[in-house]
């Protein structure tokens, strides 16, 4: 607990730099990443990140120093060249964009590793630490670094804010943007430059290999929680900054732990949780929905069974014992037991002397389901011209999903039929 307080008080200037620095870099990457994500350019971000390595190495070879400004310039230039090459190859050759991304990424990264190895064996003493660009060097950010990269990050955020409306339009419908005379090429150039810059500063924290995660993961997670662009950007920013803080805290507690990779681990955890748990679109709510559908089908089928068994005698409240019910339709015994218990709790059936009876409420419901089944059979027969012996299976499924609104439409379109295609009565409730 004390550790946490120490950390959050930022009394240690080093912690302060690292925490603020990584938070800013992550936030900038997350904001720009939202647009990359929406423009379906997630992989392009990965290519740019890897392609920045040779730029950094060349900047070092030419300038002979690790001055962050030179390295940033080198990174930006080689990032831009890689982006142009990806676009050129996919527009001017038979290759599709995934292939051109793959080619540019691996060629640039390979060249970068080659340069990096050469520099390391050159005996130049000031090269130490250049290899940190592979996985980031968040823990050793200096105040100079933070000032420079932080200002770039703030400038990025400001430009996105300025062009928000236009970026939104070109991401959604760039043809329309062109048609009203917006300078789309210029806007795309600005947006791409922002992406390259965000990546160039972001690699300080997590390195070229993990940079794509910083760019795309916050947007991916945020997309699950909202349908509004500004909220999505806000959520992505918070997730990015929060993960940066968490990553920094973990490596503060355990100095042997690397900051950058931990930021990415936190982000990935948040993204995975979003994929699973987000309301409506998450995997878990989907499973729940399927489960509740299954139960609805089971319960309605049991009610329907009561109706069918007593249709001939027209004594709809007569009793049936468990084994009769079980034999009459292919239920698992367990399934039937659970279904009966549920329907009893809803007062749709009751048990007397070990025999199950429909209640008044249950009969209304049973009639509704049979009615929907037979109306749908009628509809298939009349409107889709299906033969009477071909309509049953379809109706078995559809009867459970027809809403009262659709039911009224069906009745109207079929002119309130009284018989289904098999000449059974359609039970209306009066």
């Amino acid at each position: 607990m004390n550790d946490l307080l120490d950390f959050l008080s930022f009394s240690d200037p080093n912690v302060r730099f690292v925490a603020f620095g990584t938070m800013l870099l992550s936030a900038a990457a997350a904001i720009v990443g939202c647009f990359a994500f929406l423009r379906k350019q997630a992989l392009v971000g990965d290519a740019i990140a890897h392609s920045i390595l040779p730029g950094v190495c060349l900047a070092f070879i030419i300038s002979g120093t690790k001055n962050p400004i030179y390295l940033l310039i080198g990174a930006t230039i080689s990032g831009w060249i890689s982006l142009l090459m990806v676009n050129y190859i996919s527009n001017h050759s038979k290759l599709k964009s995934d292939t051109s991304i793959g080619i540019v990424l691996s060629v640039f990264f390979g060249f970068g590793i080659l340069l990096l190895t050469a520099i390391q064996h050159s005996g130049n003493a000031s090269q130490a630490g250049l290899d940190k660009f592979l996985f980031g060097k968040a823990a050793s950010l200096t105040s100079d670094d933070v000032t420079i990269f932080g200002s770039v990050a703030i400038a990025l955020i400001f430009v996105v804010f300025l062009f928000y409306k236009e970026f939104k339009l070109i991401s959604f419908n760039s043809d329309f943007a062109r048609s009203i005379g917006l300078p789309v090429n210029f806007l795309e150039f600005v947006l791409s430059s922002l992406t390259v810059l965000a990546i160039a500063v972001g690699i300080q924290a997590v390195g070229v290999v993990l940079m794509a995660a910083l760019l795309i993961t916050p947007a991916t997670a945020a997309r699950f929680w909202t349908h509004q662009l500004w909220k999505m950007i806000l959520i992505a920013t918070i997730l990015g900054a929060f993960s940066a803080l968490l990553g920094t805290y973990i490596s503060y507690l355990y100095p042997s732990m690397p900051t950058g990779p931990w930021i990415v681990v936190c982000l990935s955890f948040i993204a995975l949780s979003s994929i699973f748990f987000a309301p409506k679109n998450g995997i878990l709510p989907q499973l729940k929905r399927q489960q509740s559908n299954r139960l609805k089908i089971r319960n309605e089928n049991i009610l329907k069974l009561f109706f069918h068994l007593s249709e001939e005698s027209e004594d709809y409240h007569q009793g049936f014992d468990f084994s009769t019910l079980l034999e009459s339709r292919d239920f698992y015994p367990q399934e039937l037991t659970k279904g009966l218990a549920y329907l009893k709790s809803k007062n749709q059936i009751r048990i007397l002397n070990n025999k199950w009876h429909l209640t008044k409420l249950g009969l209304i419901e049973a009639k509704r389901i049979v009615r929907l089944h037979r109306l749908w059979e009628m509809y298939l027969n009349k409107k889709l011209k299906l033969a009477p012996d071909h309509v049953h299976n379809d109706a078995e499924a559809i009867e459970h999903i027809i809403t009262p609104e659709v039911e009224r439409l069906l009745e109207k379109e079929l002119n309130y039929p009284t018989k289904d295609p098999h000449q059974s009565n359609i039970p209306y409730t009066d």
Partner: protein
Amino acid sequence: MEEIALETHNLTVSYNRKPVLWNVDFKLPKGQIIGIIGPNGSGKTTLLKSIMGLTPLSSGYVEIFGQKLNDVRHRISYVPQRESVDWDFPASVMDVVLMGRYSPKNLFKRIKKVDKDIAAEALEKVNLLEFSNRQISQLSGGQQQRVFIARSLTQNADLFIMDEPFVGVDAATEQAILTLMQEMKSKGKTVIVVHHDLQTAKDYFDWIVLLNTRLVASGPKSEIFNEELLQEAYGGKLNVLSKVGELVKEHDFPIREKKRK
């Protein structure tokens, strides 16, 4: 012919190096509802895109109200194909309709109250006002199309250019679009619509352009709807023209010789 809304002069356009429009040359009158009709792959969408400057021209030019496109953009509203955008984009109906109020003049500026009022009015016209806050991903095909139409209404244009607005829409939407087109016409506006269904074209439009990689005919519908012209437009592509097109693509050949400066 009375005043001209749109003229294309010897328009030739290539797509992936293959010419898809050959020397298309026509003039369209003002204040009419005009259908551009032709079979699949006849270059209808490409024609609209080249009119809107979205596709580079290999040759020829386009004039709108007697002027170059850039001088009259504010008088034109372009409605792209509904399927050309990703409707899963995080935006509400209102967001999309407001995009019609963007312009090069209000770069950097926030949307104003008056723009929102105009957007609400347009939404009311297409019967979607109660859906303004609805997510666009939750709309039906017809509703999506009406969102696009509403966006176009906010532009206060004199010329409307719509790409396949009737594809995949319900009867109510179809009726709504037709009514709006008539309303535009009665206000003296010009509506140009790309359409692929021959059956309905006769009822929808006053003027028809028949297209099949080349211009087959352009004129009032009474003159156009005859067996011979329709057969020509829908009876397949011209054999030699297609062959030459393939040759141009195969050899990566320029469609026009470079002129000496």
